Structures are given as structure tokens and as C-alpha cells.
């Protein structure tokens, strides 16, 4: 209705300094340190994940690709062995996932009480003292980034460690990643600009037009 129309016409006041997150899947070894660090930093409740790691294994024994995906406990305690014939594996890699902090967030659009919004720096936050726990935003998020916090009875999600990035630090998951698979910084930062110039950079679910700000390198078509 009129509100949705306004959503298209009124653009959020954005500074030039928006934050951007880049994931290089080639460097991810599936150790799960990021998941553990996020849980410690943000007091994430059990069995819920603000960030998690998935493993994709694409095999072929002569016919078209078979794709196998798993994420045991979100990859927090590493990944186990697989009963897969090593010769059949075409490609196998780990993909860390987290809230995309979309530029056109579907979750912000559907919150009935304005408890979630996108800040000037491009971070999507939740106001826990106003959330009524209707869980509409969880239905709207295409990436599965939101969860219902059973202790506080409100919805919660990754905040890119807002309390850290506003102090000039990096999110906890980026800090502890041992291989540098996760990168974070302002759009104008040099290391971010360098990665964004690669041509195999892509986003997840582009057809939904959410304009996520987490970019993925070296992931196959089977990741969405």
C-alpha cells in the first residue's frame, strides 16, 4: 500500500562509509572458530546461530552433478568424515554464512512495529525492547539469518558485532578466522576494493533483489 510505495521512494540516509563483508570460500577450512567466537562474544543461545559454516560436496560418477550439503551443528565443532568416493568428487568447499545486511532488506520491510532498521553505515539492527516477537521477519529473510531467542522472547540476528565495528575493531568472526577467509571493512578500504575487483565475486540469491552486502568468492552455482 502507500507504505510500501514510500519504501521504494524514500532511500535510507546512507553515508559513503558503508561496511562490506567478503568471504573467500577457498580459504575456509571449516574449523568452526568463527561460530565459537560469535557465540562467546554475543551470548548466542544454544542451537541457534548468528553465523554458521556449510560444506558443499559436488560429485559425479559419470552423470550430471550430485550436490550434497551439510552443516552439522552449524559447523561449530568442525566437520566429520564423509562416506564419499574421493575420485568422484568434482569440487568440495566450505561456505560460511551470516546475515547479509542487505541494502534492500526484506526483514525491515515486514516488521510491523519498526523494531528493525538499517543504520547509516548499512548495518541492519534489531531493537530488542520493541520487538514483539511476531517472527514475521524470520519468515521474510531468504538467507535464514534470523532466529527466535527463547530466553529473551524476541528475534535476534547477527549485528556484524556493531559494538565492535563502531569502535574501529572488526567483528569477532573476522578477528578469529585463522586463514583470513572472512574479510570486513568499509567499502573504500583497500583490501575490500581489491577483492571486489575480482570477477568471480557474487552474492547469494540475486533474483530476490535484496542487494546483500556479503560478497562470496570462489563458490559454485550450487550455493544460494
Amino acid at each position: 500500500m502507500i507504505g510500501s510505495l514510500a519504501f521504494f521512494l524514500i532511500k535510507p540516509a546512507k553515508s559513503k562509509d558503508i561496511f562490506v563483508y567478503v568471504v573467500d570460500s577457498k580459504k575456509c577450512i571449516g574449523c568452526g572458530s568463527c561460530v565459537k567466537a560469535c557465540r562467546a562474544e554475543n551470548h548466542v543461545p544454544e542451537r541457534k546461530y548468528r553465523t554458521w559454516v556449510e560444506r558443499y560436496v559436488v560429485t559425479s560418477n559419470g552423470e550430471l552433478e550430485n550436490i550434497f550439503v551439510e552443516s552439522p551443528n552449524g559447523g561449530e565443532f568442525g566437520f566429520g568424515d564423509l562416506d564419499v568416493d574421493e575420485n568422484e568428487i568434482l569440487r568440495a568447499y566450505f561456505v560460511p554464512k551470516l546475515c547479509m545486511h542487505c541494502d534492500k532488506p526484506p526483514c525491515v520491510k515486514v516488521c510491523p512495529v519498526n523494531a528493525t532498521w538499517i543504520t547509516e553505515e548499512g548495518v541492519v539492527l534489531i531493537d530488542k525492547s520493541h520487538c514483539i516477537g511476531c517472527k514475521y521477519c524470520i519468515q521474510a529473510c531468504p538467507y535464514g539469518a534470523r532466529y527466535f531467542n527463547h530466553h529473551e522472547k524476541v528475534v535476534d540476528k547477527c549485528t556484524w558485532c556493531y559494538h565492535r565495528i563502531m569502535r574501529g575493531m572488526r567483528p569477532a568472526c573476522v578477528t578469529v578466522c585463522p586463514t583470513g577467509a572472512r574479510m570486513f571493512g568499509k567499502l573504500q578500504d583497500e583490501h575490500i576494493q581489491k577483492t571486489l575487483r575480482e570477477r568471480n565475486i557474487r552474492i547469494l540469491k540475486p533474483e530476490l533483489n535484496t542487494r546483500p552486502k556479503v560478497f562470496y568468492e570462489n563458490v559454485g552455482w550450487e550455493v544460494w
Partner: protein
Amino acid sequence: MTTTVVEGFVYPNHEVFWGVLIVIYPYFVSIITGMVTVYAIAEFWRKELKDIEKLVVISSLPFVLSALLPLLLDLGQPQRAFEIYLTPNFSSVMAVFGIVYLTELFTLLGEMWFLFRVDIVRMAQTESNKLLRLLYRILTLGVYDISEKAIKLDKKIIKILTGIELIAAWCLSYVSFLFGVVKSNPWWNTTILPVSFVFGGLAAGGAMVLLLYLAFTRAYGIERKPNIISTVANYAFYFMLAAFALETINTILYAYKEDIAWAVIKLASTELAVPLAIQVIGSLEALLFLKYVCYRCNLGKIDTPFIAIASVTILVVVFAMRWNMVIGAQLIDYSLRGFVSYTPPLWGREGLIAALGVLVAPFIMLPVVAYIFPPYERKLRAGL
């Protein structure tokens, strides 16, 4: 919620978040739409339905009031529910629906007042019970005018209010937009969803009117008129036919297009075998019985068992349709690689017992409303 992963890969945070309570909520809302549509048909087009006007209006009120119950039980923070009016986000369907709901509530109350005004004035003067008499006197707003002129003005205002109420009731189907705008969910993100929702609701409303007509005529000792039953059953038949056709078309389109959503929807259908069977078999049975009832009523004979069975079947079928729409679509997660199963818990705020309580709540409120605003002359009470 008890969600367990059945097959494939689902995102770690995935659960069935909207359970049986949120199935009941659109169910009640669509029943309201149906009942108000029958009332509008009685008011504007089918004068022979004049007798059931009061009945339908007072029966809509308990449903409108108890549509709030599942929401309050399901919210994580129900005490903050009023925030939808304090700090609304107008690009969210839920917030706009709050306003539509209020409009419907007020219009319904206004309609009831004008419809029953003559009765209220009379009962304020003749009622024996002290408390009820006080209530009626307050409701008259101090005006005891029941002259011809006043009654004619009342009838005009009722016509206007009915028009507004009809529009508001159809706007209540905006609740289906709540699901239709979620582009992340391939089951919900279809254009046909709101349309099939409306017709399902109209059918359920018609069935509810039939059931309530049977119940009230029994309770008040009124003779049943076959032409009323025939008309309402006819309308319910066509609404049900439309709903059934739309759902079938939707499924056929999905199956033909065979995009990625269809692969997982087909998988998750194993979980939904029972509601789907109820939907298909029940629809056909209800259509058959309704046509039979119409045929018999045109001959002047009323077959109560067939009417009851047909109405109850339609209500169950529409409930199954809502179950498929709400819970069925949450069984597939957005990784589109697996699905979960859902069993509602027994106890607790979101349990089956609570859901059962919500389902019977309107029927508990109905006798109270009917006592204060009797749809027919109180032959019973006069006889006591």
C-alpha cells in the same frame, strides 16, 4: 514448536515458527469475510434472507473478537502487542492489517447497534433483569425514538454501513497478503494465493451461517425455511467450487513449471498427506452434498443431517487449506534442499490444548452475545 529435520539440508536456524495458532488466525478472519458477505447478500440482493440478518451479524462479533486470541498467544511479547498502533511500519502488511481489523470491528459494532436499536429501546423499557436493563438503557444512548421516520433513517444508515462493512470484510483478506508478499518462500510467493484465500473464506463463512442457522432455529424454536437454506447453500457451493478450482490450478501450474520450488514442495507433500487428502476428498464431498441439499430444499424438504455434514466438511476443508498454506510452506526451508516435519506440542502457549481453546472461544462467546442481542423473538424465555 517441535520441528524435526526429516530429509536433506535445512538452514541451522530453521524451524516452523508459525504453528497451529497462526493457522487458526487466517481461518477465523476468512470466516468473518464469508459471514459478512452472506449478510451483505441478504441486505442488498436476496430479500428472502432477511430472517437471518440479525443472526449473521451477532455471530460475526465473537469471531472478530476471538481473532485476537491466537495472535496474543503466539507473540513472543504479547504485552507489547499494542505497539502495532503506537509505532506502525506502514510498509508491513501486519501493521496495515491492524488498522483494517479495527475498521471492521467498529463497523460491525455500529451495524449491530443500528440493526438492534429498536429491540434495545423496547427491552430498555420492558426488561425485568436489573443489570441487563441498565445495559440496554446505556446502549440506547438516551434516545427512545422508534417512530417510522427514525426506523427509515436507520434502514438507510444500515445500507451504508453494510457497504462499508462488506468492503472492510473483503479487505480483511489482506491477511493473505501477509503470506503473499514474502518473496523468500516459493510456496507463498504466488499471485493466486490471496484470491484462493478469499474464496475459501467465503465458502467457510457460508457453511458457518448454515450451521448457525440450524443451531439457532433449534434453540429458539423457530421453523426453518427451505428457501433460506437453499440460497445460502447455493452460494456456499459456488464459493467452494471456486476455491477448489483455484487451489487445483495453483498446484497444476507449479507442477507444470517444475522450477526448484516444485522439487521441494513435492517432497514436503509427504508430510502433508493427511491435510491434502482432506482438502481434495472433502471438497468434492461438500460440493456434492451442497447441491443435493439445494435440490431437496427446492422441493421443500430440509435434510438436516446432509446440511450439517456438508457444512462441517467445508469448515474442515478450509482449515486443512489454511494448514497447508501456513504450515506446509514452512516445512520447506529456504535452502530449498530439505524439509522438516512439524508436530504441535500438547501443552504450553502454542500447544494443541490452547489451539482447541481458541477454536471454541467464539462458540462460548456466542450464547452471551445472543442473550444480550437476541436474533429472534425470545419464545423460549417467554415460555419459561
